[in-house]
Structures are given as structure tokens and as C-alpha cells.
């Protein structure tokens, strides 16, 4: 089951650039939350702060508190441990090309020393079913490389890979922006089904996508969270002028 995320006074830098400024935000458990905003507004940096991927860049720096469930992820726990609890799907599908589909999906488990074959088989099937990919790949799970799938299939496999470690939170950084409309709608359906079990945070450029999948939406601009409210309110009656300008297409 998913857990809630509580962000307080979060600031992030890339070198001298102050990419996130004083972000305060509560993300509810077992719901989908969308983050929108123009390019370079800090929304990707924000999700990367939620699983401490931001700090893998040597010039990056973070201050503030992020609580996931009852853990302060910057103080109570190592980055490796938090990433085992918080799955992430990236903008471009990044399967491991030298591994089969099967190995790709259970790579997170094998990494952590999970060796029980029968259980691995079950987990791989369950994860691929949750990612709506099972029927398309079940016949050549171990024969085909993860890189031999189409882009949309690769992205769903990456979602299955993230789900296989049974995360509490699933972060998605523009998961459909490199995909065609059909694959995009499959990913959206998937988010719709998954959000009852996981806390999902999805960064998107596509405002219709945010409106379709998310209960809550946050609007980022120039490294600040301008507005965070229910998706319905953001898209029908935003309280901030800048949000309104953005969703009506006056800029961005």
C-alpha cells in the first residue's frame, strides 16, 4: 500500500542555479498527483528529490525535509534504502539491453539478493500483468532482450520493473512524453488502475493527461510551487492568475 508524502521547506540547487525554492506540499497516499509546469520549472528536479536521485549529480544540493510515510528520507535512511521503497519511471524507457524481459523485470529483486525462483516467476508475472504487458510478452520472457520491445512496451516493462520491488510510492517523470498516442493512453489507463495501490506522483507536460489521471495537481513555475489543489479546481477555477494563464495556454 502507498504512503503519504510530506514536503517541507525543500530547496534544491544545480551548481549555482536555485532550481527549487521553498516547496511545501502534502501528497496524499494511494492517489495520483500530477505536477505540471513549463520546461525548466523544477518539477522533474522535485520528483528526483523524492527518491534522492537529485543528489546523484555531483553538483546538486538539497536542503529541507521530505517525509515518506513516517521516514524523514534525508535523515533517517540511506539513499539506497529509500530508492528500494520509492520506484521511479523515467522520461525515456531505459531497459537493460543485455537482459531478457524476465531479468529486466526482476532486476531490482535480484539486485537485493532475492533468489527464490518460484516466487520470482510469480512476481514477474504479477508485475507484468499490472503493467498490462503480460499478454504481449509472456511467450518470450526469457528469449527476448528488453531492448527488442517497442518504445511503449519498453516503458510498460520499466513500470513493471519498478512495481516488482513492491514500492510504496511510484514516481513518474513524464512517462509518456516519448511515446505515441496509443502507448500514451495505455500508460494512462495503467496509472488509473495502479493509483488505488500506490501513491503515484506524475510529472507531465500534457495538461489533459494531468486532468485525466490525477486527483491532485500542482503547478510549478520558475522553481516555485505556485498552486497545489484538487485537479478539478486547478483546471476549472484556479486561485492564482499565473496558473490560469498557463492552463489556458497564454504562456508555456
Amino acid at each position, binding site marked *: 500500500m502507498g504512503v503519504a508524502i510530506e514536503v517541507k521547506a525543500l530547496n534544491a540547487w544545480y551548481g549555482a542555479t536555485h532550481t527549487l525554492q521553498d516547496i511545501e506540499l502534502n501528497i496524499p497516499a494511494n492517489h495520483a498527483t500530477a505536477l505540471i509546469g513549463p520546461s525548466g520549472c523544477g518539477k522533474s528536479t522535485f520528483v528526483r528529490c523524492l527518491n534522492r*536521485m537529485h543528489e546523484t549529480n555531483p553538483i546538486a544540493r538539497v536542503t529541507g525535509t521530505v517525509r515518506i510515510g513516517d521516514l524523514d528520507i534525508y535523515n533517517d535512511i540511506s539513499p539506497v534504502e529509500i530508492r528500494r521503497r520509492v*520506484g521511479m519511471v*523515467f522520461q525515456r524507457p531505459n531497459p537493460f*539491453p*543485455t537482459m531478457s524481459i524476465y531479468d529486466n523485470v526482476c532486476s531490482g529483486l535480484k*539486485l537485493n539478493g532475492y533468489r527464490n525462483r518460484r516466487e520470482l516467476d510469480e512476481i514477474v508475472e504479477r508485475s507484468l500483468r499490472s503493467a498490462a504487458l503480460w499478454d504481449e510478452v509472456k511467450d518470450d520472457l526469457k528469449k527476448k*532482450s528488453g531492448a527488442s520491445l517497442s518504445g511503449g512496451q519498453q516503458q510498460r516493462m520499466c513500470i513493471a*520493473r519498478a512495481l516488482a520491488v513492491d514500492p510504496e510510492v511510484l514516481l513518474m517523470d513524464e512517462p509518456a512524453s516519448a511515446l505515441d498516442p496509443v502507448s500514451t493512453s495505455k500508460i494512462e489507463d495503467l496509472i488509473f488502475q495502479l493509483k488505488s495501490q500506490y501513491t503515484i506522483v506524475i510529472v507531465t507536460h500534457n495538461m489533459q493527461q494531468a486532468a485525466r489521471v490525477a486527483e491532485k495537481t500542482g503547478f510549478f513555475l520558475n522553481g516555485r510551487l505556485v498552486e497545489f489543489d484538487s485537479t478539478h479546481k486547478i483546471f476549472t477555477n484556479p486561485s492564482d492568475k499565473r496558473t490560469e494563464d498557463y492552463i489556458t495556454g497564454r504562456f508555456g
Partner: protein
Amino acid sequence: MSNLHVPNPAAGNPEGSAPIRIAVPAAEQPLSQAEQPISAVRRYLLSRGSSSVSDRIFAGIMLLCALVIFALVALIATELITQSRPSWHAFGLSFFYHYNVDPITHLPLFWDPVNGVFYALPFVYGTLITSLVALCIAVPLAIGLAIFLTEMCPRWLRSPLSFFTELLAAIPSVVYGLWAIFVLVPLLRDNINPIFIRIFQLPVLEKLLGWTHLFGDNGLFGGVNLGLGLLGAGAILAIMILPIIAALTREVMSAVPNSQREAALALGATRWEMIRMAVLRNARIGIVGSIILGLGRALGETMAVAMVIGNSPEIHLSLLSMGHSMASVIANEFSEATSDMHRSALIEVGLALFLVTIIVNACARLLVWAVTRGAPARVQ
């Protein structure tokens, strides 16, 4: 093409090739253009004509430069083949495995130019063993260095470290040889070999692993410890091939896209797990390629080996024993080879070395190219 803005396209196609049709909106090319005065720039450009002749001459010269490479390889090969023919006729394939027995000592006798005995097995053996020793030492070092450079090195240290690594490759091999004689050989003899000798003569190991014949007085570290010999040659070769392997390994590792590293990290991989899963796994074919390239260099390396290996055409299991390699025997004996058969036999050794190194290098280049040209190699 030059005729796009000329009112009558049929007139201005000096090369005679089919005109390239580009859809130009009619409105942008008013027909009245012919009546307007032609600008000075346009007149100059129109008078320039085509450059096809000079282009063709230029292309021809460049092609000639490129063909020189093929000609060189062909010339070297034919020369080696014709010159080695007498030896090939006299010994055939047995040149590479046969030996005589010394009438006095009853030991195998491979190479005795005075009495016309020419069998090349000790050279092949020496080349293989020294290269193998070199790989065993250099590969772990080089991969470790490459991992450090691509994945862990602080920014300020990266350039100096790669610079010095590549500098190692630029040192002339005879300098390595001198350094080996004055530093490496004494070091091996006094400090390193005694440790190995003690380990390999432990009674426990002899009892347990005696069947491998690698332990004890006649084993891998038996015999007289002079410092010179196969191990010394292997060690100096290791230092010489280290920069090649490290540089290429680093290249194929940096060719692994960052998204692979992020994929592993996001799954909760530690740094080492990420390197194993995302970097080494994707780069492995290229790493094998760089190792083979290092092997190619080790096989053909001459001067440093000739100065350290001991130059005796014998075969002993012990790494401490003196040996000879294919390249070093040519370097040592060619100037003194007076009989035709001696010279021909040396050239045949050279031909064998030429073929082996070409094949090894070709394999290595193919593997490295397969990885660095774009997407990482895939399983099917």
C-alpha cells in the same frame, strides 16, 4: 546548384548531370527578374563555372593516400611469404611444434643456428606465456582504473589521471626495457618472487594440488630466481599494455548512457551494484575488445621483452626461467643470421607473428566498434 536563380534553368547546368528539382514557390521568382540588372555578386558566381575537374583530381589524390595502406599491408605480407619460403619447404608445419634431442644432454633442442636446427615452439610458448602473464596483471588494474575514472573520480583528478595514463603509452619501449632491468628485475628478484616461491612450495598446496604440476620445485615458481625471465617480461608487458586497455575500457564505459545508471540507482542499487549491473554489463563486449587489443600489443612487443626475457630458446614451466619470444628472437638474431636458412626461419617466425597480431587486432577492433558505434550490444 548554381542554376537555381537563373531565369532559364536549361542553360545553366554545366556538369551535365540531372538538375535537382527543388520546389520553389512561383511567387518568389518573378519572371521579370531577367529584366532587372544582375548584381555583381551574382555575375561573379555565374562566371565561376563548375569545380568538377579539381574536385575529381583532389578525390583521386586522397584515394591514392588511402590505397597506400592496402599496398603496404600487401607488400609486407608478400615479402614475408617469399622470404620465408626456404624455411617453410624445409620444415613445413613441424616448424611450430617439432624438436630434436640434444645428443649430449638428452634435452629437447629447438633452435641451434650453428647446426641448422630451427624449430620455433619456444618462441611461440614464450610469446603466449608472457602475454598471458601480462594480461593477468594488467586487466584487473586497467578495469579498476577505468571504473575509477568514469564512475568515482573527482572532477579535478580526472584530467591529470587520464593524461598520465595515456602518457604511459607514449614512453618508448626501450626505455621500459631499461627501467625493467634496473628497477623491475631487482624488485622481482628480491621482494616479489620470494613470496611466490614460498607460497608455491608450501607442502600443503603441494599435497593438495600436486596433480596440477604447478607447485613445488618443478612448478610455476621452481628453479633459479634471477629476476630475468618470463615473469619479468610479463610484468613489463603488463605495464606497457595497461594504458591501452584502461583508455579503451574507459571509452566503452563512458559510452554507456546515463539512463542506464539511473535505472539501476532508482531500483536501489548501491554504487558498486550499479557499476556491475548498468556499466560493466553493458560495456562487457567492448571491455573484451580492449583486452584483446592489449593482447595484440603484448604479442608483438619486442624491445622491452628482449631486454628482460633472458633470450634462451627453451621451454620450462617455471615463470622464473629464461625464455624467448617471437619478436625478441627476431630482434636479437636477425643481424647475426648468416645462413640463408637461419634468416628464412626468422622471417617465418615474423610471418606467424604478423598473422596472429593482425587477426587479434581485427577481432578487438570489431568488438570495440560494435559497442562504441551506438546502442550497446544486445542479446537476442
